[in-house]
Protein backbone atom coordinates (compact mmCIF):
# COMPACT_ATOMS: atom_id res chain seq x y z
CA UNK A 1 0.00 0.00 0.00
CA UNK A 2 1.31 3.40 -0.93
CA UNK A 3 1.65 5.85 1.93
CA UNK A 4 -0.60 8.90 2.01
CA UNK A 5 0.97 12.27 1.24
CA UNK A 6 2.33 14.58 3.91
CA UNK A 7 0.82 17.98 4.54
CA UNK A 8 3.57 20.59 4.54
CA UNK A 9 3.29 24.28 5.30
CA UNK A 10 6.36 26.47 5.03
CA UNK A 11 6.28 30.19 5.72
CA UNK A 12 9.15 32.66 5.64
CA UNK A 13 9.40 35.56 8.07
CA UNK A 14 12.43 37.77 8.83
CA UNK A 15 14.80 35.35 7.12
CA UNK A 16 13.57 32.34 9.08
CA UNK A 17 11.44 29.64 7.50
CA UNK A 18 8.92 27.92 9.72
CA UNK A 19 7.98 24.43 8.51
CA UNK A 20 4.99 22.45 9.74
CA UNK A 21 4.60 18.87 8.62
CA UNK A 22 1.87 16.33 9.21
CA UNK A 23 2.68 12.76 8.26
CA UNK A 24 0.20 9.97 7.82
CA UNK A 25 1.64 6.89 9.48
CA UNK A 26 0.48 4.13 11.81
CA UNK A 27 3.60 4.29 14.00
CA UNK A 28 3.07 0.84 15.50
CA UNK A 29 5.35 0.19 18.43
CA UNK A 30 5.49 -3.57 18.03
CA UNK A 31 4.28 -4.01 21.59
CA UNK A 32 0.55 -3.76 21.04
CA UNK A 33 -1.61 -6.86 20.71
CA UNK A 34 -4.53 -7.20 18.34
CA UNK A 35 -7.98 -8.57 19.22
CA UNK A 36 -6.69 -12.13 18.75
CA UNK A 37 -3.86 -11.54 21.23
CA UNK A 38 -1.16 -11.55 18.58
CA UNK A 39 1.53 -8.92 18.56
CA UNK A 40 1.02 -6.22 15.97
CA UNK A 41 4.35 -5.97 14.15
CA UNK A 42 6.35 -2.81 14.64
CA UNK A 43 5.91 -0.29 11.87
CA UNK A 44 7.28 3.18 12.42
CA UNK A 45 9.17 5.98 10.75
CA UNK A 46 12.89 5.70 11.41
CA UNK A 47 14.34 8.68 9.68
CA UNK A 48 13.11 12.05 8.54
CA UNK A 49 15.02 14.59 6.53
CA UNK A 50 14.29 17.97 5.06
CA UNK A 51 16.25 19.46 2.20
CA UNK A 52 16.30 22.95 0.77
CA UNK A 53 18.31 23.67 -2.39
CA UNK A 54 20.03 20.32 -2.09
CA UNK A 55 21.13 21.01 1.48
CA UNK A 56 19.86 18.99 4.41
CA UNK A 57 18.29 21.45 6.85
CA UNK A 58 16.92 18.85 9.22
CA UNK A 59 17.75 15.23 9.83
CA UNK A 60 16.02 13.22 12.53
CA UNK A 61 16.03 9.64 13.76
CA UNK A 62 12.75 8.50 15.15
CA UNK A 63 11.58 5.51 17.09
CA UNK A 64 8.35 3.85 18.20
CA UNK A 65 7.73 6.47 20.91
CA UNK A 66 6.55 8.99 18.33
CA UNK A 67 2.76 9.15 18.04
CA UNK A 68 0.54 7.97 15.23
CA UNK A 69 0.13 10.56 12.44
CA UNK A 70 3.14 12.56 13.65
CA UNK A 71 3.35 16.33 13.58
CA UNK A 72 6.74 17.98 13.12
CA UNK A 73 7.55 21.66 13.30
CA UNK A 74 10.97 23.27 12.86
CA UNK A 75 12.67 26.48 11.73
CA UNK A 76 15.69 27.07 9.53
CA UNK A 77 17.49 30.14 8.31
CA UNK A 78 18.04 31.22 4.75
CA UNK A 79 15.01 30.07 2.78
CA UNK A 80 13.20 32.58 0.57
CA UNK A 81 9.59 32.81 -0.50
CA UNK A 82 9.11 30.72 -3.64
CA UNK A 83 11.89 28.26 -2.76
CA UNK A 84 11.05 24.59 -2.59
CA UNK A 85 11.52 22.35 0.39
CA UNK A 86 11.46 18.54 0.31
CA UNK A 87 10.59 16.25 3.18
CA UNK A 88 11.36 12.54 3.20
CA UNK A 89 10.61 9.82 5.68
CA UNK A 90 11.70 6.21 5.69
CA UNK A 91 10.17 3.58 7.93
CA UNK A 92 11.44 0.30 9.36
CA UNK A 93 9.82 -1.68 6.55
CA UNK A 94 11.73 0.33 3.99
CA UNK A 95 8.69 2.30 2.85
CA UNK A 96 9.55 5.81 1.80
CA UNK A 97 7.67 8.94 1.04
CA UNK A 98 8.87 12.29 -0.29
CA UNK A 99 6.76 15.41 -0.62
CA UNK A 100 7.54 18.93 -1.68
CA UNK A 101 6.18 22.33 -0.74
CA UNK A 102 6.81 25.91 -1.76
CA UNK A 103 7.81 28.40 0.88
CA UNK A 104 5.46 31.33 1.15
Amino acid at each position, binding site marked *: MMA*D*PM*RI*RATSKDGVVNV*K*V*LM*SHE*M*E*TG*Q*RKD*AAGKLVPAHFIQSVSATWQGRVVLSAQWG*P*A*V*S*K*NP*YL*EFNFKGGQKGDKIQLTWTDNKGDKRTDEATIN
Partner: protein
Amino acid sequence: MLSIKLKVALALSGFALVYTAHAQQKPAAAPKAAAARIKQAAGTPKSAITAEFEKFREVMEEASPAELFEAKGEDLWKAKRGPKNASLEQCDLGLGPGVLKGAYVRMPRYFADADQVMDVERRIVHCMVTLQGYKAEDLAKQPFSNQSRTPDPVSLVTYVAGQSRGMKIAVPQKHSKEREAYAVGREIFNFRAGPWDFSCASCHGESGKRIRTQDLPNLTTKAEAIRAFQGWPGYRMTGGLMHTLQWRMNDCFRQQRFPEPGYASETIADLLTYMGVNANGRVYKGPGIKR
Protein backbone atom coordinates in the same frame (compact mmCIF):
# COMPACT_ATOMS: atom_id res chain seq x y z
CA MET B 1 -8.18 -0.48 22.70
CA LEU B 2 -5.51 1.88 23.88
CA SER B 3 -2.15 1.42 22.32
CA ILE B 4 0.82 1.39 24.59
CA LYS B 5 2.38 4.50 23.15
CA LEU B 6 -0.86 6.34 23.75
CA LYS B 7 -1.00 5.18 27.31
CA VAL B 8 2.49 6.54 27.71
CA ALA B 9 1.54 9.80 26.06
CA LEU B 10 -1.51 10.08 28.29
CA ALA B 11 0.47 9.24 31.37
CA LEU B 12 3.00 11.88 30.45
CA SER B 13 0.42 14.55 29.75
CA GLY B 14 -1.34 13.52 32.97
CA PHE B 15 1.86 14.14 34.85
CA ALA B 16 2.22 17.60 33.35
CA LEU B 17 -1.36 18.42 34.19
CA VAL B 18 -1.15 17.18 37.74
CA TYR B 19 2.00 19.17 38.19
CA THR B 20 0.33 22.37 36.99
CA ALA B 21 -2.66 21.82 39.21
CA HIS B 22 -0.38 21.28 42.17
CA ALA B 23 1.64 24.39 41.43
CA GLN B 24 -1.49 26.45 41.26
CA GLN B 25 -2.77 25.30 44.61
CA LYS B 26 0.44 25.93 46.46
CA PRO B 27 0.45 29.69 46.96
CA ALA B 28 -3.24 30.09 47.76
CA ALA B 29 -4.36 30.55 51.36
CA ALA B 30 -6.38 27.69 52.81
CA PRO B 31 -9.93 29.09 52.86
CA LYS B 32 -9.50 30.75 49.52
CA ALA B 33 -8.09 27.59 47.98
CA ALA B 34 -10.90 25.50 49.42
CA ALA B 35 -13.50 27.90 48.04
CA ALA B 36 -11.79 27.87 44.68
CA ARG B 37 -11.72 24.11 44.68
CA ILE B 38 -15.40 23.85 45.50
CA LYS B 39 -16.16 26.29 42.74
CA GLN B 40 -13.96 24.31 40.41
CA ALA B 41 -15.70 21.08 41.34
CA ALA B 42 -19.02 22.72 40.52
CA GLY B 43 -17.53 23.33 37.10
CA THR B 44 -18.24 27.04 36.93
CA PRO B 45 -14.76 28.24 36.01
CA LYS B 46 -12.79 26.03 33.74
CA SER B 47 -10.83 23.41 35.62
CA ALA B 48 -7.05 23.55 35.38
CA ILE B 49 -7.04 20.36 33.33
CA THR B 50 -9.52 21.71 30.83
CA ALA B 51 -7.54 24.92 30.54
CA GLU B 52 -4.35 22.95 29.92
CA PHE B 53 -6.03 20.82 27.31
CA GLU B 54 -7.38 23.87 25.55
CA LYS B 55 -3.91 25.34 25.34
CA PHE B 56 -2.77 22.11 23.78
CA ARG B 57 -5.73 22.13 21.41
CA GLU B 58 -4.89 25.64 20.24
CA VAL B 59 -1.41 24.52 19.29
CA MET B 60 -2.71 21.37 17.64
CA GLU B 61 -5.46 23.09 15.69
CA GLU B 62 -2.85 24.79 13.55
CA ALA B 63 -1.83 21.44 12.22
CA SER B 64 -4.48 18.96 13.24
CA PRO B 65 -4.15 15.41 11.94
CA ALA B 66 -7.76 15.91 10.81
CA GLU B 67 -6.17 17.57 7.77
CA LEU B 68 -4.80 14.23 6.67
CA PHE B 69 -8.35 12.92 6.53
CA GLU B 70 -9.54 16.03 4.71
CA ALA B 71 -6.95 15.32 2.05
CA LYS B 72 -7.98 11.67 1.85
CA GLY B 73 -11.64 12.71 1.66
CA GLU B 74 -10.90 15.08 -1.19
CA ASP B 75 -9.29 12.29 -3.19
CA LEU B 76 -12.23 10.01 -2.47
CA TRP B 77 -14.72 12.72 -3.46
CA LYS B 78 -13.10 13.24 -6.85
CA ALA B 79 -12.22 9.65 -7.68
CA LYS B 80 -14.37 7.46 -9.89
CA ARG B 81 -15.38 4.63 -7.62
CA GLY B 82 -18.02 2.04 -6.84
CA PRO B 83 -20.00 -0.33 -9.08
CA LYS B 84 -21.09 2.63 -11.24
CA ASN B 85 -17.55 3.97 -11.51
CA ALA B 86 -18.65 7.53 -10.73
CA SER B 87 -17.23 10.32 -8.60
CA LEU B 88 -19.22 12.22 -5.99
CA GLU B 89 -18.78 15.52 -7.79
CA GLN B 90 -22.45 15.50 -8.80
CA CYS B 91 -23.55 14.95 -5.21
CA ASP B 92 -25.93 17.69 -4.09
CA LEU B 93 -25.38 18.65 -0.47
CA GLY B 94 -28.20 21.18 -0.53
CA LEU B 95 -26.58 24.04 -2.41
CA GLY B 96 -26.52 22.38 -5.83
CA PRO B 97 -24.54 19.46 -7.29
CA GLY B 98 -20.91 19.62 -6.29
CA VAL B 99 -21.22 22.83 -4.24
CA LEU B 100 -19.29 22.21 -1.05
CA LYS B 101 -18.57 25.68 0.27
CA GLY B 102 -20.86 26.28 3.22
CA ALA B 103 -22.80 23.04 2.75
CA TYR B 104 -21.71 21.52 6.05
CA VAL B 105 -22.93 24.41 8.23
CA ARG B 106 -26.33 24.28 6.50
CA MET B 107 -27.04 20.67 7.33
CA PRO B 108 -29.08 18.73 8.37
CA ARG B 109 -31.63 19.92 5.83
CA TYR B 110 -34.56 18.66 3.81
CA PHE B 111 -33.76 17.01 0.48
CA ALA B 112 -36.69 16.79 -1.94
CA ASP B 113 -35.13 13.97 -4.00
CA ALA B 114 -35.06 11.70 -0.97
CA ASP B 115 -38.02 13.35 0.79
CA GLN B 116 -36.01 13.22 4.00
CA VAL B 117 -34.10 15.45 6.35
CA MET B 118 -30.46 14.44 6.09
CA ASP B 119 -27.35 15.26 8.03
CA VAL B 120 -24.10 15.39 6.09
CA GLU B 121 -23.12 11.75 6.61
CA ARG B 122 -26.59 10.49 5.77
CA ARG B 123 -26.49 12.57 2.58
CA ILE B 124 -23.05 11.37 1.58
CA VAL B 125 -24.13 7.78 2.10
CA HIS B 126 -27.19 8.56 -0.03
CA CYS B 127 -24.93 9.89 -2.79
CA MET B 128 -22.60 6.89 -2.55
CA VAL B 129 -25.63 4.66 -3.05
CA THR B 130 -27.40 6.62 -5.79
CA LEU B 131 -24.38 7.92 -7.73
CA GLN B 132 -21.75 5.27 -7.15
CA GLY B 133 -23.92 2.19 -6.68
CA TYR B 134 -22.70 1.17 -3.23
CA LYS B 135 -25.11 -0.73 -1.02
CA ALA B 136 -26.38 1.08 2.08
CA GLU B 137 -26.23 -2.18 4.07
CA ASP B 138 -22.53 -2.57 3.27
CA LEU B 139 -21.76 0.99 4.32
CA ALA B 140 -23.64 0.46 7.58
CA LYS B 141 -21.75 -2.73 8.47
CA GLN B 142 -18.71 -1.11 10.07
CA PRO B 143 -19.36 2.61 9.80
CA PHE B 144 -16.96 3.83 12.49
CA SER B 145 -13.20 4.20 12.55
CA ASN B 146 -11.11 1.63 14.35
CA GLN B 147 -7.40 0.84 14.60
CA SER B 148 -7.31 -0.95 11.29
CA ARG B 149 -9.63 1.14 9.16
CA THR B 150 -11.16 4.56 8.58
CA PRO B 151 -14.40 4.14 6.63
CA ASP B 152 -14.68 6.26 3.47
CA PRO B 153 -17.70 8.31 4.65
CA VAL B 154 -15.64 9.49 7.63
CA SER B 155 -12.94 10.99 5.40
CA LEU B 156 -15.58 12.36 3.04
CA VAL B 157 -17.46 14.08 5.87
CA THR B 158 -14.17 15.54 7.10
CA TYR B 159 -13.40 16.92 3.65
CA VAL B 160 -16.87 18.45 3.28
CA ALA B 161 -16.71 19.93 6.79
CA GLY B 162 -13.37 21.54 5.96
CA GLN B 163 -15.08 23.46 3.17
CA SER B 164 -17.17 25.32 5.76
CA ARG B 165 -14.28 26.44 7.93
CA GLY B 166 -14.90 29.88 9.47
CA MET B 167 -18.52 30.01 8.35
CA LYS B 168 -21.63 30.63 10.41
CA ILE B 169 -23.86 27.73 11.30
CA ALA B 170 -27.22 28.17 9.57
CA VAL B 171 -29.23 24.96 9.86
CA PRO B 172 -32.47 25.67 7.98
CA GLN B 173 -35.97 25.49 9.43
CA LYS B 174 -37.94 26.52 6.35
CA HIS B 175 -39.43 23.22 5.29
CA SER B 176 -42.09 21.66 7.49
CA LYS B 177 -40.05 18.43 7.66
CA GLU B 178 -37.08 20.39 8.98
CA ARG B 179 -39.23 21.84 11.73
CA GLU B 180 -40.59 18.38 12.44
CA ALA B 181 -37.04 17.03 12.66
CA TYR B 182 -36.21 19.71 15.21
CA ALA B 183 -39.25 18.87 17.31
CA VAL B 184 -38.59 15.13 17.16
CA GLY B 185 -34.90 15.74 17.88
CA ARG B 186 -35.85 17.68 20.99
CA GLU B 187 -38.09 14.81 22.10
CA ILE B 188 -35.29 12.29 21.61
CA PHE B 189 -32.89 14.57 23.47
CA ASN B 190 -35.20 14.68 26.48
CA PHE B 191 -36.46 11.09 26.31
CA ARG B 192 -35.59 9.21 29.46
CA ALA B 193 -35.37 5.44 29.26
CA GLY B 194 -33.07 2.46 29.50
CA PRO B 195 -31.66 0.64 32.53
CA TRP B 196 -30.25 3.87 33.95
CA ASP B 197 -33.28 6.01 33.17
CA PHE B 198 -31.06 8.34 31.18
CA SER B 199 -31.64 10.91 28.49
CA CYS B 200 -29.24 13.14 26.56
CA ALA B 201 -30.55 15.93 28.78
CA SER B 202 -29.36 14.10 31.90
CA CYS B 203 -25.81 15.17 31.06
CA HIS B 204 -26.38 17.97 28.55
CA GLY B 205 -29.46 19.75 29.85
CA GLU B 206 -27.94 21.71 32.68
CA SER B 207 -24.94 24.04 32.83
CA GLY B 208 -21.84 23.37 34.91
CA LYS B 209 -21.95 19.57 34.81
CA ARG B 210 -18.98 17.36 34.16
CA ILE B 211 -17.90 13.73 33.93
CA ARG B 212 -14.53 13.26 35.61
CA THR B 213 -12.49 16.16 34.23
CA GLN B 214 -14.62 16.68 31.17
CA ASP B 215 -16.89 19.74 31.25
CA LEU B 216 -20.22 18.98 29.65
CA PRO B 217 -21.92 21.57 27.46
CA ASN B 218 -25.55 22.41 28.11
CA LEU B 219 -26.86 21.81 24.62
CA THR B 220 -30.23 23.37 25.35
CA THR B 221 -28.73 26.85 25.63
CA LYS B 222 -27.71 29.06 22.73
CA ALA B 223 -24.38 29.86 24.32
CA GLU B 224 -23.22 26.27 24.76
CA ALA B 225 -24.99 24.44 21.91
CA ILE B 226 -22.11 25.31 19.60
CA ARG B 227 -19.97 22.86 21.52
CA ALA B 228 -21.92 19.98 20.01
CA PHE B 229 -20.86 21.18 16.59
CA GLN B 230 -17.40 22.57 17.22
CA GLY B 231 -14.49 20.23 16.81
CA TRP B 232 -16.49 17.65 14.87
CA PRO B 233 -15.58 15.76 12.83
CA GLY B 234 -12.74 15.34 15.24
CA TYR B 235 -9.42 13.57 15.47
CA ARG B 236 -9.50 11.78 18.79
CA MET B 237 -6.16 11.45 20.41
CA THR B 238 -7.46 8.42 22.30
CA GLY B 239 -6.56 5.87 19.67
CA GLY B 240 -5.67 8.43 17.04
CA LEU B 241 -8.94 7.93 15.19
CA MET B 242 -11.05 10.25 13.09
CA HIS B 243 -14.69 10.36 14.14
CA THR B 244 -17.80 12.17 12.91
CA LEU B 245 -20.91 13.37 14.74
CA GLN B 246 -22.57 10.19 13.53
CA TRP B 247 -20.19 8.24 15.75
CA ARG B 248 -20.55 10.73 18.62
CA MET B 249 -24.34 10.30 18.66
CA ASN B 250 -24.00 6.54 18.50
CA ASP B 251 -21.57 6.56 21.40
CA CYS B 252 -23.81 8.77 23.54
CA PHE B 253 -26.61 6.23 23.09
CA ARG B 254 -24.21 3.45 24.02
CA GLN B 255 -23.20 5.30 27.17
CA GLN B 256 -26.86 5.69 28.06
CA ARG B 257 -27.29 1.92 27.58
CA PHE B 258 -29.82 2.53 24.83
CA PRO B 259 -30.17 0.24 21.83
CA GLU B 260 -27.80 1.29 19.08
CA PRO B 261 -29.43 3.72 16.64
CA GLY B 262 -29.26 2.86 12.94
CA TYR B 263 -26.29 4.25 11.01
CA ALA B 264 -27.21 7.40 9.07
CA SER B 265 -30.75 7.02 10.39
CA GLU B 266 -33.58 9.49 10.81
CA THR B 267 -33.03 9.44 14.58
CA ILE B 268 -29.54 10.84 14.21
CA ALA B 269 -30.62 13.39 11.59
CA ASP B 270 -33.38 14.62 13.93
CA LEU B 271 -31.02 14.90 16.90
CA LEU B 272 -28.44 16.76 14.84
CA THR B 273 -31.15 19.10 13.55
CA TYR B 274 -32.12 19.94 17.10
CA MET B 275 -28.55 20.55 18.18
CA GLY B 276 -27.58 22.33 14.97
CA VAL B 277 -30.45 24.80 15.07
CA ASN B 278 -29.62 25.57 18.70
CA ALA B 279 -26.09 26.45 17.56
CA ASN B 280 -27.20 28.63 14.65
CA GLY B 281 -25.33 31.91 14.22
CA ARG B 282 -22.05 30.65 15.70
CA VAL B 283 -18.89 30.33 13.67
CA TYR B 284 -17.77 26.81 12.80
CA LYS B 285 -14.01 26.38 13.00
CA GLY B 286 -13.69 23.26 10.88
CA PRO B 287 -12.62 19.69 11.67
CA GLY B 288 -10.99 19.60 15.05
CA ILE B 289 -9.20 17.67 17.66
CA LYS B 290 -10.64 15.83 20.64
CA ARG B 291 -9.07 14.15 23.56
